[in-house]
């Protein structure tokens, strides 16, 4: 086959993906950029929508809140998911692994909104958690969990532990058992094998899962809105607030692009770090 026809086939193969990206990413992205620069109809371009973010503490605090919550969720999810994935990959008998994986992804089968409202009821003052703790004598009276940042984190972690478990599990299963055998032959303890051999080899899987968690959590509106009780605002909530009554698409677009810039920075950091690890 000539190089020209190979090139044509290659272009034909990537064209649908390019068109998809153009129509559903580039065009909306440019539209948002244009909208963000026109806060008032009939007036010229201005950076006012961006300026308000940097000059209004309530606005940039929303970004700080988002980063804090997302980082907490990502770290807790990784810490919980790794041992879970490890147990699934190495301790659960092969024939039960499929069932265990299915059980692990069960929460994905329910509606996101329904799941969040369920957590709200579970974490409420008269909910299962408080009632149990009070009945066990661990609390003298119910404490406020629902409508707090803790509730938001719990809701997120419940969802993302499953996602991370899947990515880390896939990574662990790809590892040849020979790595562990070789480390043991060379006198490494189980802990040393994990720290010096397994963990570095599974870091790409962890990073991909952590990045996915970060991206999905920082842009999520439902969970903080339902579980956080609006006791603080995260970026997606602030963005939605601009649209609800006032239909202020310039502010909403500017805030969305700022959020997107943060995600891009996180991606670049993640990609650079992974590159260094592999080098």
């Amino acid at each position, binding site marked *: 086959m000539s190089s020209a026809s190979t090139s044509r086939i290659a272009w034909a193969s990537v064209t649908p993906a390019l068109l998809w990206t153009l129509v559903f990413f580039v065009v909306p992205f440019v539209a948002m950029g244009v909208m963000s620069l026109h806060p008032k109809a009939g007036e010229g371009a201005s950076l006012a929508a961006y300026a308000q973010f940097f000059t209004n503490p309530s*606005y940039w605090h929303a970004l700080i809140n988002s980063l804090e919550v997302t980082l907490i969720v990502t770290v807790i999810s990784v810490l919980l998911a790794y041992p879970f994935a490890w147990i699934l990959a190495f301790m659960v008998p092969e024939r039960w692994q499929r069932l265990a994986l299915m059980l692990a992804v069960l929460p994905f089968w329910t509606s996101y909104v329904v799941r969040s409202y369920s957590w709200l009821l579970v974490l409420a003052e008269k909910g299962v958690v408080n009632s149990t703790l009070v009945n066990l004598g661990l609390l003298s009276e119910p404490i406020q969990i629902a409508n707090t940042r803790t509730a938001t984190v719990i809701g997120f972690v419940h969802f993302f532990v499953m996602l991370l478990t899947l990515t880390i599990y896939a990574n662990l299963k790809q590892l040849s058992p020979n790595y562990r055998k070789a480390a043991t032959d060379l006198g490494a303890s189980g802990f040393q094998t994990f720290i010096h051999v397994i963990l570095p080899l599974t870091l790409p899987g962890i990073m991909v899962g952590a990045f996915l968690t970060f991206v999905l959590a920082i842009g999520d509106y439902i969970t903080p809105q339902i579980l956080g009780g*609006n006791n603080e605002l995260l970026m997606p909530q602030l963005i939605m607030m601009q649209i609800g009554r006032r239909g202020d698409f310039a502010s909403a677009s500017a805030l969305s692009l700022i959020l997107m810039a943060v995600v891009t920075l996180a991606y670049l950091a993640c990609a650079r770090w992974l590159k260094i690890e592999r080098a």
Partner: protein
Amino acid sequence: MTNRLTRRLFGASVAALALIGSYAAASAADLNALVWCDHSDPNLLKPFEDATGIKVNVKEFEGTGAGLAIVDQSQPGDWDVMVIDTVDVRRGVDRGLFEPLPEDKLPMADIFPEVLMNQHAVVDGKRYGVTEKFGYNTIGFNKSKVDAADMDTLGVLTNDKYKGRIAIYDYYLPVMGLAAMAIGKKTSELTEADLPAIKEVLQKMKANAKAVTDVVASQTALATGEADILIGGGEWVTAGIAKENPDLDFSIPKEGAVLWSQSLAMFKDSKNKDNALKFIQYVMSPEGQARLATSSCYWGMPANKQATLTADQKKILRFDEQADFLKRAQEYPAPSEDLDKKMQDLWTAMIQGQ
């Protein structure tokens, strides 16, 4: 082979065109309504559809901004009617969206005069919106958990006695209206100069609150006992669940409450103006009003005094007390665009604890 394939393709194309044609014919008789959730109740729509053969296609939205954005993204003629805050009717008129409504074909004489809000719904002598439902953003509460006498004053907004037992309805205009009334200001006369004093009330209110809740969460908070008081609540939260939770009630404090009111408007570019008018007439009829007032999404007072509500429903809505309530109620704040933005920013600051 090729001929057979061609024939099949032709046949399929004809069938598809016939389907499209029948859809288009069906669409012409349909009514496309941009509505709030209370209009999606089959109990409201079905009698109209059965009686007229007009299918009502509804799309729900929350907030005037979101609704107008949907219209901006649509083709002229896509929508026939819209539900809108009465104070925002003029926003639609200024954009050239609405058609004047024929007052002589609507039960204007039966509508509570206080909720017509002609200053917002009538422009240049023409009516562009007709109030269909109203109520109050006031104090909703569980009477078995609080001292009902405390609910008769807006002092409850900042009363430490109920610290940690209060939820605040997450909508800045009515709640800031209540805060303004609590310090003796009129909601219709708010200016930027009033914002620092309102901010103080909001901060105290937030310090005592457990959560700032949207519509569903507000109802959940009161129903589950997560909160005993809902600032900004009213019959729209308590009435619909009154049978299951008879202790839920609302008060109109001595300082008054904020009157909310929603209107129906017809689009200027509607292709089904006759059907649109029929729908508006149905919703404004005594039967339509009773069904709308007791919609499964949320209850509210029917604008038409002749609404065929049952005695129980009237009791829950406190129908017979409306004359007194309306006397004390103040208008929903309708700030200029700049003031609106500043009020929203103040609300944001309150939530962020700043």
